[in-house]
């Protein structure tokens, strides 16, 4: 099964949030990279079927998801970027509610909820009201609900927001185990979150798809554009004006080692091995700066 995003656009009154994006998602973990405001959330909502595209369509197994309706939702797991819970629910109640809506039989849902609560380390707080949980815990409840129905298509919009480093590692491991034979799409603007678990990536900016491919393919695009150089500390501002500096490390004797992106290096530079983040920044000339307001 594959998920085909076919010339999908979304226009709001005065803004085109997603502009003619086409992408074929095959089983595996996909990273959707883009700065805040790039159109990731809008694209995710259209893939999840809760926002209709202005043009184009999303197809699963060759059939538009609107036509599939309940069949598509039956294989879908979705974690929005921003989401709320009913204040009156405990963790257990909420997951039981979500499991019923996902059509899990009662006994199966009890087993699955327990299993997932263990996986996301929330077993101890299952009787607690969600409103009283920390941001990271709420996020983990969100992740658990998305996995309840063992979805064939898992859409996670900024899933690691609010998670501490340990939780991020556990989340990545959980997802790696889960992803076999499934389509998992993770949107983020934090590249390391997907660099090691996503086999393929799509990079979008201003609603347009800039690049797509495997990690290796994409990293290859940044080959010959990443450089290291050691310069006097007081020269950093001058270099910042000339180059896109992506890393600065203090060295002995008042000098600093910089890592920067450029087509042509300055004197004394040596080529550095590119990483996915380098390509992402290379393709985002604005430096991945966050656009004003909330993402469309």
């Amino acid at each position: 099964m594959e998920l085909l995003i076919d010339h999908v656009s979304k226009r709001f009154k005065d803004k085109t949030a997603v502009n003619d994006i086409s992408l074929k998602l095959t089983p595996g973990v996909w990273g959707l990279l883009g700065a805040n405001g790039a159109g990731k959330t809008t694209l995710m909502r259209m893939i999840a079927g809760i926002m209709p595209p202005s043009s184009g369509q999303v197809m699963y197994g060759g059939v538009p998801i609107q036509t599939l309706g309940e069949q598509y939702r039956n294989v879908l797991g979705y974690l929005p970027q921003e989401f709320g819970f009913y204040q009156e629910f405990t963790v257990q109640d909420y997951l039981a509610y979500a499991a019923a809506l996902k059509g899990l039989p009662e006994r199966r849902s009890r087993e699955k909820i327990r299993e997932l609560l263990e996986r996301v380390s929330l077993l101890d707080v299952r009787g607690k009201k969600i409103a009283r949980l920390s941001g990271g815990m709420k996020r983990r409840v969100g992740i658990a609900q998305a996995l309840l129905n063992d979805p064939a298509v898992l859409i996670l919009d900024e899933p690691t927001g609010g998670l501490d480093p340990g939780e991020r590692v556990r989340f990545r491991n959980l997802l790696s185990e889960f992803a076999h034979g499934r389509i998992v799409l993770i949107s983020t603007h934090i590249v390391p979150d997907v660099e090691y678990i996503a086999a393929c990536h799509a990079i979008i900016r201003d609603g347009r798809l800039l690049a797509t491919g495997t990690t290796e393919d994409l990293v290859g695009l940044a080959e010959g554009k990443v450089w290291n150089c050691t310069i006097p500390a007081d020269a950093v501002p001058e270099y910042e004006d000339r180059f896109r500096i992506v890393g600065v490390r203090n060295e002995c004797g008042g000098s600093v080692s910089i890592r920067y992106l450029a087509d042509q290096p300055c004197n004394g530079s040596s080529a550095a091995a590119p990483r996915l983040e380098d390509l992402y920044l290379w393709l985002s000339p604005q430096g991945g700066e966050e656009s004003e307001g909330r993402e469309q």
Partner: protein
Amino acid sequence: MRILHLELKRVMKSRLTWVLLALALAFSILLAWLPVTYCYSNDTDEAGNEVRLTGLASVAYEKKRQADAAGVVAPERVREAVETYQACLTAYGVTESYNLPEGVYEREILPIAPLLHGVKEAFADPDTGMAPSIMEIDPARLDDYYSICEARIVSLMETEQPDSPAAQHRAAEMYRQVEKPFEVYPGMNSAIMDYQNIMGFLVLLFCVVIAAPAFSAGYQSGADDILRCTRHGRAELGSAKVLAALLVSGAAFLICAAAYLLTANSLFGWECTETSIQMMYSIVTLADMNIGELQRLFAAAGLLSVLASVSFTLFLSAKCRTAAASLASGLVFCIAPTVVSMTAPETLSAWLCSILPASSTSIQASVLYAVTDFQFLNLGGLAVWTPYAMIGACAIEIPLFAFLAVRSYCRHTAPGG
């Protein structure tokens, strides 16, 4: 069923729901008690001193004093009452009962007062509607009391609905079918019905507050984004939310109405509910029922009105993007019938108040007032009595708005930006 059960569990776990339901029940009992506190009577003790009785003591005193008046309101009993009244006032040389010497009214007139209800109205001038004083009525004419009442409804309708012969005919026909002679069992007053109206309106408000966030709160918090991506997250969840809100509201209203009627009727006496409504309201009231039946009809109409209003509020909730917007618009529609009845022209008001879902239990425009009024909706040659229109409209609106709420919920899309 499982989703409905979980949705009901969710609604009933909300502290707001419990607080509002508890308040509704407490208000229902309090409102049933309040009319008792307004009752007062003056008695004279053995030493000849005037004693003021209040509350249940007053109710008991009046029941005791008027015990002989209780029963069937046969024309000859009305005639005797009028003769007694006229003889009493003539003996004291006054023309109005409030000019009688202290204690005389309580002794002479109070015991027969229930039988005198409506006599002046029955003899009102057909052209001006002005009622004569009882002293001006010829007791001999009272032998034909109910024929006079039937003639009065004809003249009244000619004044009330001059352009609608259909309404005039329908009203006269309805009144002819009212069982006569009437019955009266003293002790209860119309405040009981007014407070039942207030009770219904308060429960309506509480139910609307509970129902208003049903969909919109999920939209606002983003909780809905997750739920609508699930297998049963559209029509099934929407239907479960609608059903849960209707069940909770319906149960709340039934419990509160039952608590109100049990309390009020126990305080004033269940036998009072056998009184014909013509002996509490206008003598030419069109409905063929007693007070108990009116209470039950009003409760049933109130239930339908609450369910229709909740259904409509759910529709608003499915349309609004924030809980505050759905709550505000829901409450506006609760008070709309009252505002319309006070401000709109009569015909427009009659139509709007018959259609608006909250009408049946709204203040000043409820089914209670419609039953005791003489308004008809005229459509071509058809005249529909407004209580029928109100109840019919609610019965249609409950499934209609429930369907529209589910449909709107299914069609809702996540907001941009």
